[in-house]
């Protein structure tokens, strides 16, 4: 009996020390990791929220949403201004990557096409054109968004991203 107690205490101490070491390293590296997560997309995030908002990557499970890659929160004065989703969905020749921002009142605040290099030049890349972007930005959740005729695959990929982002927003942040 005494032996078992001894072993238990020893293992508990080792595990406790290990936990302490881990929390120390985590505290040291976590801010850097967070910063890096944002650094790669920060330039694009600032295009959508240019007024000195602070961004942070949210640690949420996106396994139910195959078109969503990451979620960022834009904060101003300590409260959330809106949420920005990084999406990627199958277009005509490959994946179309976008950033779509939803304001706290449910308005599409911004849309940035990050990567549509696999889409046909002159046809699919119309999704980067102003007329398509403007047909999304400013609309509210529930408004319908039209595809571009002739560039159905490419614009559908963007809309797929928007729809999943909206669904996630409705379920988590509304």
């Amino acid at each position: 009996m005494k032996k078992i107690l001894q072993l238990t205490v020893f293992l508990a101490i080792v595990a406790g020390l290990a936990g302490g070491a881990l929390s120390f390293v985590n505290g040291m590296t976590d801010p850097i990791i967070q910063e890096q997560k944002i650094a790669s997309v920060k330039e694009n995030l600032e295009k959508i929220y240019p007024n000195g908002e602070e961004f942070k990557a949210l640690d949420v499970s996106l396994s139910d949403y195959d078109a969503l890659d990451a979620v960022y929160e834009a904060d101003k004065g300590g409260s959330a201004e809106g949420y920005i989703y990084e999406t990627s969905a199958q277009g005509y020749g490959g994946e179309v990557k976008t950033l779509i921002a939803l304001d706290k009142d449910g308005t599409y605040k911004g849309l940035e096409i990050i990567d549509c290099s696999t889409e046909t030049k002159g046809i699919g890349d119309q999704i980067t054109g102003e007329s398509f972007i403007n047909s999304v930005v400013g609309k509210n959740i529930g408004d319908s968004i039209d595809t571009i005729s002739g560039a159905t695959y490419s614009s559908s990929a963007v809309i797929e991203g928007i729809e999943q982002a909206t669904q996630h927003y409705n379920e988590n942040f509304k």
Partner: protein
Amino acid sequence: MKKFDIFKKGLFAENPIFVLLLGLCSSLAITTSLTNAIGMGMAVICVLLMSNFIISLLRKIIPNEIRIPVFIVIIATLVKCVQMIMNAYTPELYESLGVFIPLIVVNCIILGRAESFASKNGVLDSILDALGMGLGYTLAVVIISFFRELIGTGGLSLYNPFDASQVIFQVSFFSDYAISLFTQPAGAFMTLGTILAFIQFLKVRKANKAKKAEVK
């Protein structure tokens, strides 16, 4: 001289991959490029050095009955630390090595050395053993990835593992004739199998020569 032998045996005579055949899972998976292999090698050396050091320090006070759980806790903690540090300072390498960094925990090389060497030998010997085994692992994955990258992509490239934008060299020899199978897992098995066969061939030939010399 004996100290040097402890170091050297990990490189050749007891090379963890080519001779002991330990830790094959990660070594097959990450050997798609030289850069990955060197990065993974360094991660393994770090973990192995620290785990051998700590375990040989504690070898007298760790109760024999629970030594394996204690080893695993120590190793898992070290691996997690290395993982977080890599995520913070070498994000590109962290991305490309993916799940195989946390899997260093179950890499048999680490636990194997802890159990069979560090728990029985002094601190200095254990550090030498870790260095030898770690470098042996690195050497082996570099050799495998050299052939896989060369055959699979038709060229060789090496980036600074700490900063992927820093290209050390990048050459292409026959990219039109590359066999992309070799960048796939099946290619890893073929490459490893061929290398093992070659090593075996060398060993057998050496043994035969020795035998012939005896007969004469």
